[in-house]
């Protein structure tokens, strides 16, 4: 079991780099399987329910890329001269959008896994006093994903109650109220942090964070994966140059497989707080 949040953070950073640096579909499929394996023991955690948002996010770039890009030699069909969407729709554009979509899906999955395993208390505790504003942002970002979704749903329902359009097509009209709601919540949260003395001096720790040998192993594996991605990675996949992905190098495969280390001991997080709803 991973005990220290730093190990999860390093794993998360390495996972995000792997998702975005080389978007070879073969590697992406492998990475999706790895992240699913790491997340599987935590599937009952409420944070893991966000996968639907990840899927929705993944579809958007496919649609945009396919509808707007007119490059590529492998034509699916050709539309007449309709503004914006008219012209030849290509498999290259679909593949490019899909690789971006999978990267977004992986981002949501990695953050969901982090949210299921890292308490905002521990993240805040990790940061030195000089970075207290950064700590506030960290704590806010962890707390706000679920609150933002709840606010969005409340606004959708409010539109319905007022007899206005409430489907996804109404989303643009919700952006400003959603932003305002989030800003108000962020201000209240910031006030609460201030009112409770956050950033006033040296912080101590009620429950000091402990290290295990396995934490060190996960950090080593994640850092190695990161270095392999950054230093040894071959030419990234570009469907417009070659639609068929090249076979990944052994280094790329290794860098992805190393990210599976947390799954070797995938026990859900044990807190002193248990959920007894």
């Amino acid at each position, binding site marked *: 079991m991973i005990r220290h949040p730093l190990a999860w953070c390093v794993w998360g950073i390495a996972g995000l780099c792997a998702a975005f640096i080389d978007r070879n579909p073969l590697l992406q499929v492998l990475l999706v399987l790895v992240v699913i394996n790491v997340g599987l023991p935590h599937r009952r955690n409420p944070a893991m329910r966000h996968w639907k948002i990840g899927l929705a996010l993944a579809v958007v770039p496919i649609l945009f890329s396919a509808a707007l890009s007119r490059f590529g030699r492998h034509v699916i069909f050709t539309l007449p001269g309709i503004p914006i969407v008219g012209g030849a729709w290509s498999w290259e554009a679909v593949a490019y959008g899909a690789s971006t979509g999978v990267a977004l899906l992986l981002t949501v999955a990695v953050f969901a896994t982090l949210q299921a395993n890292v308490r905002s208390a521990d993240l805040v505790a990790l940061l030195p006093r000089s970075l207290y504003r950064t700590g506030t942002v960290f*704590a806010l970002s962890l707390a706000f994903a679920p609150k933002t979704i709840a606010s969005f749903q*409340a606004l959708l329902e409010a539109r319905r109650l007022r007899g206005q359009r409430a489907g996804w097509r109404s989303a643009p009209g919700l952006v400003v109220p959603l932003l305002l709601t989030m800003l108000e919540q962020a201000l209240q949260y910031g006030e609460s*942090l201030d*009112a409770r*003395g956050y950033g*006033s*001096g040296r912080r101590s720790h*009620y429950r000091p964070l402990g290290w295990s040998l396995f934490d060190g192993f996960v950090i080593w594996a994640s850092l190695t994966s990161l270095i392999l991605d950054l230093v040894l990675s071959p030419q990234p996949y570009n469907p417009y140059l070659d639609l068929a992905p090249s076979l990944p190098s052994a280094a790329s495969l290794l860098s992805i497989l190393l990210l599976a280390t947390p799954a070797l001991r995938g026990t859900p997080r044990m807190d002193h*707080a248990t959920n007894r709803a």
Partner: protein
Amino acid sequence: MPLIALEGVRYRYPEADGPALDGITTAVEPGQVILLRGPSGSGKSTLLRCLNGLVPHSTGGDFAGRVTVCGLDTRVHLPRELGARIGFVFQHPDAQFVLEDVEAELAFGLENLGLDRGVMRKRIEETIDQVGINALRHRRIATLSGGERQRVAIAAALAMHPAALVLDEPTSQLDPQAAEDVLQVVLRLVADLGMTTVIAEHRVERIAPFVDRIWTIDAGRLQDQAPREAVAEGGARPPVVDLALRAGWSPIPLGLRDARVRAQSLAAAIPDNPPADGAGTVIARLDRLGYSYPSARAVEDVSLTLRRGQVTALMGRNGSGKTTLLRLIGGTLRPQRGRLHSEGRVAYVPQDADALLFAATVRDELRGQPEDVIAPFQAWLPRYPRDLSAGERQQLAIAVVAGQADLLLLDEPTRGLDPVVKKALTSFLRLRAASGAAMLIATHDVEWAARTANRVLLMADGEVYADGPPRTVLSDSLVFATQINKLLGRGWLLPEEVPI
């Protein structure tokens, strides 16, 4: 030397036309308990936020005068430096929580003070005992009820050993029993620790007997008075004070204990039962309606008939299924079991009225509404809706959504409202009922329900277990009885109906 001193405090929010606080000079001595009351939007929250420096450090705006807390000037010292001296409990506990679980939340403030683990542990254990939350210490905050959350919020503030505790309407979200629990905690702190306390509260009947001074704020101006003098003048006051003023009792009793001896001369008669209600045509019929969430059943076998002209109060503890029932009737949830039939336009106003307001001005929000709905909002028309106070936003949301409905479903409409606005809401609902609309209102406000409704439903565990006129349902209940009923019994609910 006063613990808290305000000298000529004037404050205006950025871009506001007038001041929110206008020349406030007062002081709080150590150990005093202050009740802060005033109409919605009068400046209560602003004044409380001055005490720990959130105003002006967090809000900006023009600040003049001086607030000193334990000798520290809030203009010089930041809120995070004052956090150890002033424990602040926000109106919405959810806005206050930083972490996921109770014990970590209690420790958060202590960690910020840099205390040793041993000291932290001792303080946390003591605080848990003082506030009585030992059963909650290992729970996740997301799983707590409203009352439990508010008690944890108080404990989190208390653990820092502040010199004073400031509470901004801590019971506004709670059912009567949970509110009672929270106020008992506050009163225990006052009695056992001599904790200096400033509390803004609309439900004054519980707290009034224990306060040393009452601060009444209106349009940013503050009156600092002795309790009896303040309640005699008006504003939010216990129903027993209204009765005492009618009966000419002197000194005015502030609580039931003081009033009992004097009341013995009153309760001879038994009130007449009002004529049977329910002559209007049926507007909604529920037949064995049921709904369950994945974790629990919310509504079970509810059969009801709602008629035009009825104002029905739906009461019950937090989590009893009131909101789910309203949402089922309002159509935002689909019944899983049973049948529901309704006629005419149904409008549902949820608890969080803010979500309903998304236009740039009140005028834009009310566009298309008839003149009689717009008329009460003339003074606010150019304002940005979210700049209104909580009570004002609630009124606007009701007008926007429910102005022309045949069946109005309101979820906690009196939350954060002052007595004058509550009275106006009562008039509005009665007017709508008289014109043929029906109302089903989930509320925790027993006094308001007794004054407004002509039918009361009590819910528990998803089931309706009592249904009848207020005089029957709200009488002789340990939890859902009005203060006058607790004093006189025999079916009397309100001070104005008791024969003197």
